[in-house]
């Protein structure tokens, strides 16, 4: 129960931050990726702000035995660098460049631009389903 509330608060602050940051505008995100054209560096400021806070959070995490409302930390431990990490990231970047949307802003935009964001999110879920189907063969 407590951890569900923590997740809701985290998601809500996240969505508010996305809206404030300008990252819910696909044109602005596309502008960051348009390095050879009319470059918009805003995304770098967003990433910088988020990284500063999270770098501090990791330092605090190192000194904690358990999280505030759970019995243990459940963090990814794999160090494996394989073709799936690289190929998946290449694909993600291609889709990001095509639409100007990544998963967070797309889902947050369901509250503000239901039709275009909805088309993207439904397609994204279909893509996740497609990966699930072929996962064992990759």
């Amino acid at each position, binding site marked *: 129960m407590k951890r569900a509330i923590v997740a809701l608060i*985290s998601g809500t602050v996240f969505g508010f931050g996305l809206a404030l940051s300008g990252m819910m505008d696909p044109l602005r995100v*596309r502008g960051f990726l348009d390095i050879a054209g009319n470059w918009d560096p805003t995304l770098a400021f967003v990433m910088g702000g988020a990284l500063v806070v999270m770098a501090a959070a990791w330092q605090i995490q190192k000194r904690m035995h358990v999280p505030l409302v759970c019995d243990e930390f459940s*963090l990814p431990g794999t160090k494996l660098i394989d073709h799936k990490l690289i190929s*998946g990231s290449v694909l993600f970047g291609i889709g990001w460049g095509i639409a100007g949307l990544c998963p967070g802003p797309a889902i947050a935009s369901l509250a503000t*631009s239901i039709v275009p964001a909805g088309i993207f999110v439904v397609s994204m879920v279909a893509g996740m389903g497609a990966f699930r189907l072929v996962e064992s063969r990759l």
Partner: protein
Amino acid sequence: MIIPGFPGAAPVEGLAGGLLIGLAAAIMLLGAGRIAGVSGMAARAVGLSKGGTPWPMAALFVGGLALGAALFTMLNGPVEATYPPSAGWLVAGGLIVGFGTRMGSGCTSGHGVCGMSRLSPRSLLATITFIGSGMATVAIINALGGGWS
């Protein structure tokens, strides 16, 4: 504030929003002991992940994203957003983003914010890769005359 040479950039709003995104990820990490990775949480919320995150947590985190954006618009008015000119871009982009983020185990939040701040080599490599591939994609689309703005 305007950055010389980049009149369209919004560095103050970007930095402030970024600090909040970092705070959100810190709340998830220190509060519930997990990574605030949107693609993983979204897959879990729709039942497309075996992942260990309890379903209510994933669903509420994902729902919170839209709730937070809705709260912002209630306080500050509409969010500026220009979408691609036709649904085809959204469908193609969405399909590839969904497939790619699952295959690569993360997106801008999980690898970009949470992983890079932890100095995870996997996440550093993933982030460099998807930013590079995104930049290449936009450059190719523009060169083919398909750019939208």
